[in-house]
């Protein structure tokens, strides 16, 4: 790879529904101490619990470095609202926002809105791709430096730097520009979990995601998936090195000693993955070894760990797994920058409208 590789680590905050802010602030503060790239919080209109984006906005001022990536569905929401809410998360966290693009495939969710019936996954992911596209355009709809505060004329913005996006999708259209100025990261980080998302979900990820979450049971399988995603991205005119592919892994660190379960995950001893490779159970030290090994094999860019018991496992991840990876210089000991993009080694995107103006 051309860039200097660095390992990326993220954790999921999901667990039994909690309704108090302190629970989440404690978890995110802990993850931040472990210098992780970001935390995720899943969401669905039918899942018990608070609005994920609200939770991470509540946590933002209490933390300083860690990235905050809530899931926001594209199915029953307004693309305009999605764009302004995520942009605002970026403003209140000063450049640490991401967005886990989700869809709402169930009839139960559809009935809560009473507007449209449940639709096939492919159709929903096609729409999610359109929403991701429209949202990114809205984020670009204010060029940097559009605010001018001209004392002489009373002009507040340079309107030549504001753009109608005029997006026409198959199910929605948006005129624009956004009501929120361009967020600190230019575009907050877009993450897509492709497990269960089908071909259309994978295509949407290859086109629009900065971070793709995958499942795999062996380094070879993960590497093949990543290569396929890179090729897809290239087909869509993207530089594959602007994609971070992270292996999602449910982790149960309740066991201090690994129990041998021969034949699973391709390891004869030590830590192992159960088929189909989405669950790890063992100790924090062995988890560090697994991460280091897969990373050394260049199978993935990093890991997205989903603790079974959030408090207990996150503590063991930070104090055990991460500490060991840091000790072995596999993982950094501090956040290299201020924004989530900087943690991930992703450039701040150039504004498409400013670019097109420059080339015309």
């Amino acid at each position, binding site marked *: 790879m051309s860039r200097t590789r660095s390992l990326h680590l993220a954790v999921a905050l999901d667990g039994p529904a909690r309704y108090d802010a302190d629970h989440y602030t404690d978890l995110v503060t802990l993850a931040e101490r472990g210098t992780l790239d970001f935390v995720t919080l899943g969401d669905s209109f039918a899942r018990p619990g608070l609005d994920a984006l609200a939770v991470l906005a509540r946590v933002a001022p209490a933390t300083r470095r860690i990235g905050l990536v809530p899931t926001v569905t594209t199915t029953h929401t307004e693309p305009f*609202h999605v764009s302004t809410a995520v942009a605002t998360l970026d403003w209140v966290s000063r450049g640490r926002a991401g967005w886990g693009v989700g869809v709402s495939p169930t009839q139960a969710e559809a009935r809560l809105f009473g507007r449209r019936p449940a639709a096939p996954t492919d159709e929903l992911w096609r729409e999610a791709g359109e929403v991701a596209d429209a949202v990114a355009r809205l984020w670009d709809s204010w060029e940097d430096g559009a605010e001018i505060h001209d004392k002489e004329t009373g002009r507040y913005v340079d309107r030549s730097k504001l753009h109608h996006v005029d997006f026409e999708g198959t199910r929605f259209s948006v005129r624009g520009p956004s009501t929120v100025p361009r967020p600190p990261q230019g575009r907050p980080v877009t993450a897509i979990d492709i497990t269960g998302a089908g071909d259309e979900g994978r295509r949407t990820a290859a086109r629009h995601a900065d971070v793709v979450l995958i499942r795999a049971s062996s380094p070879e399988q993960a590497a093949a998936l990543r290569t396929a995603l890179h090729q897809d991205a290239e087909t869509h005119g993207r530089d594959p090195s602007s994609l971070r592919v992270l292996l999602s892994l449910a982790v149960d660190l309740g066991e201090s000693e690994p129990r041998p379960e021969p034949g699973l995950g391709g390891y004869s001893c030590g830590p192992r993955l159960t088929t189909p490779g989405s669950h790890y159970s063992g100790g924090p030290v062995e988890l560090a070894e697994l991460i280091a090994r897969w990373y050394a094999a260049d199978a993935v860019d990093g890991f997205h760990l989903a603790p079974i018991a959030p408090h207990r496992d996150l503590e063991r991840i930070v104090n055990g797994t991460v500490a060991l990876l840091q000790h072995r210089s596999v993982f950094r000991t501090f956040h290299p920058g201020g924004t989530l993009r900087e943690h991930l080694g992703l450039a701040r995107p150039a504004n498409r409208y400013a670019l097109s103006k420059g080339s015309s």
Partner: protein
Amino acid sequence: MTDEGRPTLHLAAHFPGVSSTTAQNSSTSGSHIDFGTFEHLARTAERGLFDFFFLAEGLRLREHKGLIHDLDVTGRPESITLLNALAAVTDRLGLAATVNVSFNEPYELARRLSSLDHLSGGRAGWNVVTAADAFTGENFRHGSCPDRVDRYTRAAEFVATARELWDSWTPDGRARPVARAGRHFAVEGEFTVPRSPQGHPVVIQTGDSDEGREFAAAFADVAFTRHGDPKAGRAFYRDVKARLAAYGREPDDLKIMPGVTFVLGDSDEEAQERATAVRREQVSPQRAILVLEQVWGRDLSSYDPDGPLPEIDPDPEAVLAQAGAGAGDPCRTATRWRELSRRKGLSIRQTVIEATSGQSFVGTAGRVAAEMAGYVGSGTADGFLLVPHRTPGGLDEFVDEVVPLLQERGVFRTRYSGTTLRSHLGLTEPVWKG
């Protein structure tokens, strides 16, 4: 009521964002988007023991003559997300957002508001508005929205649906399914959030029409008004409070809070001078022409802002097309402004400053405190929504100078007695309707 049993003034702070009351280009103005700005204002309001901090809404950048309006503060964060972040840097202050019912769905919005109420420990407020013009609609799936006549029936159904969702958890923590098929909304299933600390977030209403007043009497905990002067204020107050009984509500169940501005000075003369200076900052020469064009419905860019008003008459149809309804009769406005200009010998800019002026409280801190105290208990208002001119320091001097005098007079709290916005407003928690 205060601890001594005297009437209490309620205070809210409005973010001085996208509005003509903002002096956005003065040397003391800061960013209108950076979180630090909002944090400063919210912390100041909390230091002043305010009931709540309030944000307006805009879902499309305003345009004038087909171009994006560039003479006003434009662009702001999304309110509910911002308020969740402000909940982290405040402890007691209520946090209220304007969110319309036209481009949202009851299930999603009820969930977002309930989340804010949980995450803030019971401090959420919701200003229900109904703007549903086709211009804004171009940013949304729905496109243009219901007829104006339908606005309040839709709003009423929206609020009723939200309340049903908020009430759908039993006091012992079980979710019961909701099945509601109304004229505008159909919601079926379980709400994912338990009953929030306030039961229901506080509902606020703004709007002066007959339907708006009726909506306030039926549904709202707080009503904002534009009636900042005592005479109009008393009439509005009497009218709306009288409507409550029809809904089985007590007059004290709805707090009426006019939106007001203030300019302080060491003497009343100095305050007047500062008020004049603020008006000049708010109305630049370009802005004066723009305001005139909005009344006239014509391109007046060739007119000199320091010269006389145009002799040509307004184009009422163009005015309607660009400003929507509610702008009043432009010809009558033009006649009134011409008279004002002739009588006082005013230029375009001076006329606009004079005609659109409306500083509610101008004077020393002592005068402002005395005037505000006079409203309370006299059937004029239950409190005020303060609109500072400057960002982010526009509230500082009010909190430092006026609040202590209100406390001395015994009309304002000296500490928060409760933790929720409802408790600040002296409102009881809504009875659970299972």
